[in-house]
Protein backbone atom coordinates (compact mmCIF):
# COMPACT_ATOMS: atom_id res chain seq x y z
CA UNK A 1 0.00 0.00 0.00
CA UNK A 2 1.22 3.47 -0.78
CA UNK A 3 2.31 5.48 2.20
CA UNK A 4 2.85 9.08 3.14
CA UNK A 5 5.54 8.81 5.73
CA UNK A 6 4.17 6.00 7.84
CA UNK A 7 0.56 6.78 7.06
CA UNK A 8 -1.15 4.11 4.98
CA UNK A 9 -3.12 5.63 2.12
CA UNK A 10 -6.47 4.07 1.22
CA UNK A 11 -6.88 2.48 -2.18
CA UNK A 12 -9.19 5.12 -3.60
CA UNK A 13 -6.32 7.62 -3.37
CA UNK A 14 -4.70 5.84 -6.33
CA UNK A 15 -7.78 5.90 -8.55
CA UNK A 16 -7.67 9.03 -10.75
CA UNK A 17 -11.41 9.80 -10.92
CA UNK A 18 -11.55 10.44 -7.18
CA UNK A 19 -9.53 13.58 -7.75
CA UNK A 20 -12.31 15.06 -9.92
CA UNK A 21 -15.54 16.24 -8.33
CA UNK A 22 -18.16 13.77 -9.54
CA UNK A 23 -21.33 15.16 -11.11
CA UNK A 24 -23.68 12.31 -10.21
CA UNK A 25 -25.12 12.82 -6.75
CA UNK A 26 -24.73 9.32 -5.31
CA UNK A 27 -21.22 9.00 -6.65
CA UNK A 28 -20.35 12.44 -5.29
CA UNK A 29 -21.65 11.52 -1.85
CA UNK A 30 -19.50 8.44 -1.75
CA UNK A 31 -16.52 10.45 -2.93
CA UNK A 32 -17.00 13.16 -0.32
CA UNK A 33 -17.38 10.56 2.41
CA UNK A 34 -14.09 8.90 1.47
CA UNK A 35 -12.20 12.18 1.37
CA UNK A 36 -13.67 13.37 4.67
CA UNK A 37 -12.52 10.21 6.41
CA UNK A 38 -9.09 10.40 4.84
CA UNK A 39 -8.57 14.02 5.82
CA UNK A 40 -9.63 13.42 9.42
CA UNK A 41 -7.55 10.26 9.76
CA UNK A 42 -4.49 11.90 8.33
CA UNK A 43 -4.77 15.03 10.46
CA UNK A 44 -5.35 12.97 13.57
CA UNK A 45 -2.32 10.76 13.08
CA UNK A 46 -0.05 13.57 11.93
CA UNK A 47 -1.40 16.04 14.50
CA UNK A 48 -2.32 18.60 11.89
CA UNK A 49 -4.78 21.23 13.05
CA UNK A 50 -4.91 23.70 10.20
CA UNK A 51 -5.13 23.14 6.47
CA UNK A 52 -4.39 25.96 4.05
CA UNK A 53 -6.27 25.44 0.81
CA UNK A 54 -3.70 27.10 -1.31
CA UNK A 55 -0.78 25.37 0.31
CA UNK A 56 0.96 22.14 -0.49
CA UNK A 57 -1.01 19.73 1.65
CA UNK A 58 0.19 16.16 0.92
CA UNK A 59 -3.30 14.75 0.53
CA UNK A 60 -4.26 17.23 -2.15
CA UNK A 61 -2.18 15.57 -4.82
CA UNK A 62 -0.88 12.16 -5.75
CA UNK A 63 2.23 12.37 -7.95
CA UNK A 64 2.11 8.63 -8.61
CA UNK A 65 -0.99 9.07 -10.74
CA UNK A 66 -0.35 12.72 -11.66
CA UNK A 67 -3.57 14.03 -10.21
CA UNK A 68 -4.35 16.95 -7.89
CA UNK A 69 -7.53 18.19 -6.31
CA UNK A 70 -8.81 21.41 -7.80
CA UNK A 71 -9.45 24.33 -5.47
CA UNK A 72 -13.16 23.69 -5.87
CA UNK A 73 -12.74 20.08 -4.81
CA UNK A 74 -10.63 20.99 -1.80
CA UNK A 75 -13.22 23.48 -0.68
CA UNK A 76 -16.04 21.01 -1.26
CA UNK A 77 -14.48 18.32 0.92
CA UNK A 78 -13.50 20.71 3.71
CA UNK A 79 -16.92 22.35 3.63
CA UNK A 80 -18.41 18.93 4.12
CA UNK A 81 -16.30 18.55 7.24
CA UNK A 82 -17.42 21.96 8.42
CA UNK A 83 -21.07 21.00 7.96
CA UNK A 84 -20.45 17.99 10.10
CA UNK A 85 -18.88 20.05 12.86
CA UNK A 86 -15.52 18.46 12.24
CA UNK A 87 -13.85 21.62 10.95
CA UNK A 88 -14.20 25.39 10.93
CA UNK A 89 -13.24 28.05 8.43
CA UNK A 90 -10.79 30.47 9.96
CA UNK A 91 -11.49 33.19 7.41
CA UNK A 92 -14.35 34.36 5.22
CA UNK A 93 -12.54 33.58 2.02
CA UNK A 94 -12.16 29.95 3.04
CA UNK A 95 -8.44 29.84 2.71
CA UNK A 96 -7.67 28.28 6.03
CA UNK A 97 -9.53 25.54 7.77
CA UNK A 98 -9.28 24.42 11.39
CA UNK A 99 -9.58 20.64 11.60
CA UNK A 100 -11.41 19.23 14.61
CA UNK A 101 -10.52 15.57 14.52
CA UNK A 102 -11.58 15.84 18.10
CA UNK A 103 -14.56 18.10 18.62
CA UNK A 104 -14.11 20.94 21.10
CA UNK A 105 -16.20 19.02 23.65
CA UNK A 106 -13.94 16.00 23.22
CA UNK A 107 -10.87 18.15 23.80
CA UNK A 108 -12.52 19.53 26.92
CA UNK A 109 -12.95 15.99 28.24
CA UNK A 110 -9.35 15.19 27.41
CA UNK A 111 -8.27 18.21 29.44
CA UNK A 112 -10.42 17.11 32.38
CA UNK A 113 -8.89 13.65 32.31
CA UNK A 114 -5.44 15.13 32.02
CA UNK A 115 -6.05 17.24 35.10
CA UNK A 116 -7.38 14.29 37.11
CA UNK A 117 -4.61 11.93 36.07
CA UNK A 118 -1.95 14.39 37.10
CA UNK A 119 -3.58 15.44 40.33
CA UNK A 120 -3.93 19.02 39.20
CA UNK A 121 -7.45 19.55 40.46
CA UNK A 122 -6.75 22.68 42.44
CA UNK A 123 -3.63 23.94 40.80
CA UNK A 124 -2.64 26.61 38.40
CA UNK A 125 -0.96 26.16 35.04
CA UNK A 126 -0.15 28.38 32.15
CA UNK A 127 -1.86 27.63 28.88
CA UNK A 128 1.53 27.01 27.36
CA UNK A 129 2.36 24.45 30.02
CA UNK A 130 -0.82 22.54 29.21
CA UNK A 131 0.23 22.10 25.63
CA UNK A 132 3.99 21.74 26.00
CA UNK A 133 4.84 21.05 29.62
CA UNK A 134 6.34 17.82 30.86
CA UNK A 135 3.01 16.37 31.91
CA UNK A 136 1.63 16.83 28.42
CA UNK A 137 4.29 14.70 26.80
CA UNK A 138 2.87 11.49 25.43
CA UNK A 139 -0.66 12.79 25.68
CA UNK A 140 -2.89 14.11 22.94
CA UNK A 141 -2.62 17.57 24.44
CA UNK A 142 1.00 17.82 23.50
CA UNK A 143 1.37 20.26 20.65
CA UNK A 144 -2.33 21.00 20.48
CA UNK A 145 -3.26 24.04 18.43
CA UNK A 146 -3.60 27.11 20.68
CA UNK A 147 -6.88 28.20 19.16
CA UNK A 148 -8.45 24.84 19.83
CA UNK A 149 -7.01 24.70 23.32
CA UNK A 150 -8.42 28.11 24.21
CA UNK A 151 -11.83 27.17 22.87
CA UNK A 152 -11.86 24.00 24.97
CA UNK A 153 -10.71 25.89 28.04
CA UNK A 154 -13.40 28.52 27.53
CA UNK A 155 -15.98 25.78 27.27
CA UNK A 156 -14.78 24.38 30.59
CA UNK A 157 -14.77 27.85 32.08
CA UNK A 158 -18.42 28.24 31.17
CA UNK A 159 -19.09 25.05 33.08
CA UNK A 160 -17.25 26.33 36.07
CA UNK A 161 -14.45 23.80 35.90
CA UNK A 162 -11.72 26.37 35.69
CA UNK A 163 -10.93 30.06 35.44
CA UNK A 164 -8.77 31.64 32.79
CA UNK A 165 -6.74 34.68 33.76
CA UNK A 166 -4.33 36.80 31.88
CA UNK A 167 -0.70 36.98 32.83
CA UNK A 168 1.57 39.84 32.09
CA UNK A 169 1.94 38.78 28.48
CA UNK A 170 -0.14 36.66 26.13
CA UNK A 171 2.36 33.89 26.64
CA UNK A 172 1.57 33.25 30.22
CA UNK A 173 -2.18 33.21 30.18
CA UNK A 174 -3.04 30.96 33.04
CA UNK A 175 -5.67 28.53 34.16
CA UNK A 176 -6.85 27.80 37.67
CA UNK A 177 -8.55 24.45 37.83
CA UNK A 178 -11.43 23.88 40.20
CA UNK A 179 -12.62 20.47 39.24
Amino acid at each position, binding site marked *: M*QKLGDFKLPQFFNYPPYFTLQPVRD*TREKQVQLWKELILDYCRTQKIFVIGLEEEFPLFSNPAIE*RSLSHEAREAFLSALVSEGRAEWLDKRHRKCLILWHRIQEWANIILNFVKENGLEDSVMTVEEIRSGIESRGTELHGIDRTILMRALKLLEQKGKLAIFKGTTADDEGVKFSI
Partner: protein
Amino acid sequence: MRRRPGIGGLQTAAAARDQYRLLGENVAKIRTDLMKEQLTTFRTQLEDFARKHKNDIRKNPAFRSQFHDMCSKVGVDPLASNKGFWAELLGIGDFYYELGVQIVDICLATRPHNGGLINLQELCNLLRQRRKSDREAVSEDDCLRAISKLKVLGNGFEVISVGKRKLVRSVPTELNKDHNEILELAQAQGFVTVAEVERRLSWTTGRAIDAFDTLLDEGLAMIDDGHRDGIRRYWFPCVSSISTAVGADT
Protein backbone atom coordinates in the same frame (compact mmCIF):
# COMPACT_ATOMS: atom_id res chain seq x y z
CA MET B 1 -45.89 -64.46 -45.70
CA ARG B 2 -47.71 -64.54 -48.91
CA ARG B 3 -49.99 -61.62 -49.60
CA ARG B 4 -53.45 -62.84 -50.28
CA PRO B 5 -55.97 -60.57 -51.99
CA GLY B 6 -59.32 -59.86 -50.49
CA ILE B 7 -60.53 -59.10 -46.94
CA GLY B 8 -58.57 -61.90 -45.43
CA GLY B 9 -55.47 -60.43 -47.00
CA LEU B 10 -56.20 -57.02 -45.50
CA GLN B 11 -56.70 -58.51 -42.07
CA THR B 12 -53.44 -60.35 -42.27
CA ALA B 13 -51.64 -57.19 -43.30
CA ALA B 14 -53.20 -55.27 -40.40
CA ALA B 15 -52.24 -58.01 -37.97
CA ALA B 16 -48.72 -57.95 -39.32
CA ARG B 17 -48.49 -54.20 -38.88
CA ASP B 18 -49.69 -54.54 -35.32
CA GLN B 19 -47.14 -57.15 -34.57
CA TYR B 20 -44.37 -55.05 -36.02
CA ARG B 21 -45.55 -52.12 -33.95
CA LEU B 22 -45.57 -54.16 -30.78
CA LEU B 23 -42.14 -55.42 -31.58
CA GLY B 24 -40.95 -51.88 -32.16
CA GLU B 25 -42.40 -50.75 -28.84
CA ASN B 26 -40.79 -53.63 -27.08
CA VAL B 27 -37.45 -52.84 -28.58
CA ALA B 28 -37.78 -49.24 -27.53
CA LYS B 29 -38.79 -50.28 -24.06
CA ILE B 30 -35.89 -52.65 -23.79
CA ARG B 31 -33.52 -49.92 -24.92
CA THR B 32 -34.95 -47.50 -22.39
CA ASP B 33 -34.79 -50.05 -19.63
CA LEU B 34 -31.24 -50.79 -20.50
CA MET B 35 -30.36 -47.17 -20.48
CA LYS B 36 -32.06 -46.61 -17.15
CA GLU B 37 -30.17 -49.51 -15.74
CA GLN B 38 -26.93 -48.17 -17.05
CA LEU B 39 -27.64 -44.77 -15.60
CA THR B 40 -28.52 -46.26 -12.24
CA THR B 41 -25.31 -48.19 -12.27
CA PHE B 42 -23.44 -45.08 -13.23
CA ARG B 43 -25.10 -43.06 -10.50
CA THR B 44 -24.24 -45.65 -7.92
CA GLN B 45 -20.68 -45.66 -9.08
CA LEU B 46 -20.67 -41.87 -8.97
CA GLU B 47 -21.90 -41.97 -5.39
CA ASP B 48 -19.17 -44.41 -4.48
CA PHE B 49 -16.68 -42.19 -6.16
CA ALA B 50 -17.93 -39.16 -4.27
CA ARG B 51 -17.68 -41.01 -0.99
CA LYS B 52 -14.15 -42.09 -1.62
CA HIS B 53 -12.94 -38.74 -2.83
CA LYS B 54 -14.91 -36.54 -0.52
CA ASN B 55 -11.85 -34.73 0.78
CA ASP B 56 -10.41 -34.10 -2.63
CA ILE B 57 -13.69 -32.67 -3.80
CA ARG B 58 -13.80 -30.35 -0.85
CA LYS B 59 -10.23 -29.17 -0.99
CA ASN B 60 -9.32 -29.10 -4.64
CA PRO B 61 -11.16 -26.61 -6.89
CA ALA B 62 -10.00 -28.19 -10.15
CA PHE B 63 -11.04 -31.63 -9.01
CA ARG B 64 -14.33 -30.23 -7.78
CA SER B 65 -15.01 -28.66 -11.15
CA GLN B 66 -14.40 -31.90 -12.99
CA PHE B 67 -16.61 -33.72 -10.53
CA HIS B 68 -19.42 -31.30 -11.30
CA ASP B 69 -18.96 -31.91 -14.99
CA MET B 70 -19.24 -35.64 -14.47
CA CYS B 71 -22.36 -35.18 -12.42
CA SER B 72 -24.10 -33.05 -15.00
CA LYS B 73 -23.36 -35.63 -17.68
CA VAL B 74 -25.29 -38.17 -15.66
CA GLY B 75 -28.03 -35.73 -14.85
CA VAL B 76 -27.13 -35.39 -11.20
CA ASP B 77 -27.06 -31.98 -9.57
CA PRO B 78 -25.33 -32.16 -6.19
CA LEU B 79 -26.57 -28.70 -5.41
CA ALA B 80 -30.20 -29.23 -6.37
CA SER B 81 -31.28 -29.48 -2.82
CA ASN B 82 -29.57 -28.75 0.39
CA LYS B 83 -30.89 -31.97 1.82
CA GLY B 84 -30.56 -35.41 0.38
CA PHE B 85 -27.73 -37.71 -0.30
CA TRP B 86 -25.34 -35.41 -2.05
CA ALA B 87 -25.58 -32.44 0.20
CA GLU B 88 -25.24 -34.58 3.28
CA LEU B 89 -22.42 -36.65 1.94
CA LEU B 90 -20.34 -33.84 0.68
CA GLY B 91 -21.64 -30.90 2.65
CA ILE B 92 -21.32 -29.17 -0.67
CA GLY B 93 -24.65 -27.43 -0.35
CA ASP B 94 -23.35 -25.58 2.69
CA PHE B 95 -20.15 -24.66 0.98
CA TYR B 96 -21.89 -22.97 -1.93
CA TYR B 97 -24.50 -21.43 0.30
CA GLU B 98 -21.77 -19.88 2.39
CA LEU B 99 -19.96 -18.67 -0.73
CA GLY B 100 -23.19 -17.17 -1.99
CA VAL B 101 -23.67 -15.21 1.21
CA GLN B 102 -20.11 -13.93 1.07
CA ILE B 103 -20.49 -12.97 -2.57
CA VAL B 104 -23.64 -10.99 -1.85
CA ASP B 105 -21.78 -9.26 0.96
CA ILE B 106 -18.85 -8.31 -1.22
CA CYS B 107 -21.09 -7.05 -4.01
CA LEU B 108 -22.99 -4.86 -1.58
CA ALA B 109 -19.80 -3.54 -0.04
CA THR B 110 -18.24 -2.63 -3.38
CA ARG B 111 -21.41 -1.28 -4.94
CA PRO B 112 -20.75 2.36 -3.95
CA HIS B 113 -17.49 2.17 -5.80
CA ASN B 114 -18.42 0.17 -8.90
CA GLY B 115 -22.14 0.76 -9.28
CA GLY B 116 -23.11 -2.87 -8.81
CA LEU B 117 -20.94 -4.37 -11.50
CA ILE B 118 -17.75 -6.16 -10.50
CA ASN B 119 -15.40 -8.23 -12.54
CA LEU B 120 -15.30 -11.90 -11.67
CA GLN B 121 -11.58 -11.98 -11.09
CA GLU B 122 -11.71 -9.21 -8.54
CA LEU B 123 -14.71 -10.80 -6.83
CA CYS B 124 -12.77 -14.03 -6.47
CA ASN B 125 -9.74 -12.21 -5.15
CA LEU B 126 -11.80 -10.43 -2.53
CA LEU B 127 -13.49 -13.70 -1.67
CA ARG B 128 -10.16 -15.43 -1.19
CA GLN B 129 -8.90 -12.62 0.99
CA ARG B 130 -11.94 -13.02 3.15
CA ARG B 131 -11.58 -16.76 3.41
CA LYS B 132 -7.86 -16.73 4.04
CA SER B 133 -8.27 -18.77 7.17
CA ASP B 134 -10.46 -21.41 5.56
CA ARG B 135 -8.90 -24.64 4.42
CA GLU B 136 -11.06 -24.82 1.32
CA ALA B 137 -9.71 -23.01 -1.71
CA VAL B 138 -12.11 -21.18 -4.02
CA SER B 139 -11.96 -21.00 -7.81
CA GLU B 140 -13.76 -18.84 -10.34
CA ASP B 141 -15.77 -21.90 -11.24
CA ASP B 142 -16.94 -22.13 -7.64
CA CYS B 143 -17.97 -18.48 -7.74
CA LEU B 144 -19.97 -19.02 -10.90
CA ARG B 145 -21.78 -21.97 -9.39
CA ALA B 146 -22.57 -20.10 -6.22
CA ILE B 147 -23.87 -17.18 -8.27
CA SER B 148 -26.07 -19.45 -10.39
CA LYS B 149 -27.62 -20.68 -7.15
CA LEU B 150 -28.13 -17.09 -6.09
CA LYS B 151 -29.99 -16.46 -9.30
CA VAL B 152 -32.45 -19.17 -8.40
CA LEU B 153 -33.19 -17.30 -5.18
CA GLY B 154 -34.04 -14.26 -7.24
CA ASN B 155 -31.39 -11.95 -5.89
CA GLY B 156 -30.98 -10.28 -9.23
CA PHE B 157 -27.49 -11.65 -9.69
CA GLU B 158 -26.26 -12.23 -13.19
CA VAL B 159 -22.97 -12.96 -14.87
CA ILE B 160 -22.42 -11.10 -18.11
CA SER B 161 -19.60 -11.39 -20.58
CA VAL B 162 -17.94 -8.27 -21.84
CA GLY B 163 -15.12 -8.89 -24.20
CA LYS B 164 -12.75 -11.31 -22.58
CA ARG B 165 -13.99 -10.75 -19.07
CA LYS B 166 -16.90 -11.86 -17.02
CA LEU B 167 -18.68 -9.28 -14.92
CA VAL B 168 -20.99 -10.04 -12.02
CA ARG B 169 -24.02 -7.80 -11.89
CA SER B 170 -25.81 -7.38 -8.60
CA VAL B 171 -28.21 -4.61 -9.53
CA PRO B 172 -31.15 -4.63 -11.94
CA THR B 173 -29.36 -2.30 -14.36
CA GLU B 174 -29.75 -3.52 -17.87
CA LEU B 175 -26.80 -2.88 -20.11
CA ASN B 176 -27.56 -2.41 -23.76
CA LYS B 177 -25.25 -3.18 -26.62
CA ASP B 178 -23.78 0.32 -26.69
CA HIS B 179 -22.90 0.12 -23.01
CA ASN B 180 -21.36 -3.30 -23.47
CA GLU B 181 -19.17 -2.06 -26.27
CA ILE B 182 -17.90 0.81 -24.16
CA LEU B 183 -17.13 -1.55 -21.28
CA GLU B 184 -15.24 -3.78 -23.64
CA LEU B 185 -13.15 -0.87 -24.90
CA ALA B 186 -12.53 0.20 -21.32
CA GLN B 187 -10.97 -3.12 -20.43
CA ALA B 188 -7.71 -2.16 -22.08
CA GLN B 189 -6.79 0.73 -19.81
CA GLY B 190 -9.64 0.98 -17.35
CA PHE B 191 -10.95 4.14 -19.03
CA VAL B 192 -12.13 5.49 -22.39
CA THR B 193 -12.54 8.91 -23.93
CA VAL B 194 -15.29 10.21 -26.20
CA ALA B 195 -12.81 10.53 -29.07
CA GLU B 196 -11.72 6.94 -28.67
CA VAL B 197 -15.30 5.70 -28.75
CA GLU B 198 -16.03 7.79 -31.84
CA ARG B 199 -12.97 6.51 -33.58
CA ARG B 200 -12.99 2.85 -32.65
CA LEU B 201 -16.74 2.27 -32.81
CA SER B 202 -17.59 4.86 -35.48
CA TRP B 203 -20.22 6.53 -33.33
CA THR B 204 -21.40 10.09 -33.38
CA THR B 205 -20.48 12.32 -30.48
CA GLY B 206 -24.12 12.41 -29.41
CA ARG B 207 -24.39 8.66 -29.23
CA ALA B 208 -21.21 8.38 -27.23
CA ILE B 209 -22.20 11.04 -24.73
CA ASP B 210 -25.65 9.51 -24.29
CA ALA B 211 -24.13 6.19 -23.44
CA PHE B 212 -21.62 7.76 -21.06
CA ASP B 213 -24.32 9.77 -19.33
CA THR B 214 -26.36 6.65 -18.65
CA LEU B 215 -23.33 4.79 -17.36
CA LEU B 216 -22.48 7.74 -15.11
CA ASP B 217 -26.03 7.95 -13.78
CA GLU B 218 -26.02 4.24 -12.99
CA GLY B 219 -22.86 4.69 -10.96
CA LEU B 220 -20.90 2.46 -13.29
CA ALA B 221 -18.60 5.20 -14.53
CA MET B 222 -16.67 8.11 -13.01
CA ILE B 223 -15.25 11.16 -14.76
CA ASP B 224 -11.62 12.20 -14.59
CA ASP B 225 -10.65 15.69 -15.76
CA GLY B 226 -7.25 15.70 -14.16
CA HIS B 227 -4.97 14.58 -16.95
CA ARG B 228 -2.65 17.27 -18.18
CA ASP B 229 -3.93 16.85 -21.74
CA GLY B 230 -7.24 18.21 -20.49
CA ILE B 231 -9.25 15.43 -22.09
CA ARG B 232 -12.03 13.93 -19.98
CA ARG B 233 -11.62 10.28 -19.23
CA TYR B 234 -14.43 7.95 -18.20
CA TRP B 235 -13.25 5.30 -15.77
CA PHE B 236 -15.07 2.05 -15.09
CA PRO B 237 -14.36 0.55 -11.68
CA CYS B 238 -15.97 -2.73 -12.71
CA VAL B 239 -13.33 -3.53 -15.31
CA SER B 240 -10.36 -2.87 -13.14
CA SER B 241 -9.38 -4.16 -9.78
CA ILE B 242 -9.29 -1.29 -7.35
CA SER B 243 -6.20 -2.72 -5.79
CA THR B 244 -4.30 -2.73 -9.04
CA ALA B 245 -5.61 0.49 -10.53
CA VAL B 246 -2.17 2.00 -10.70
CA GLY B 247 0.02 -0.82 -9.61
CA ALA B 248 -0.53 -0.07 -5.96
CA ASP B 249 -0.67 -3.20 -3.87
CA THR B 250 -2.90 -3.86 -0.94
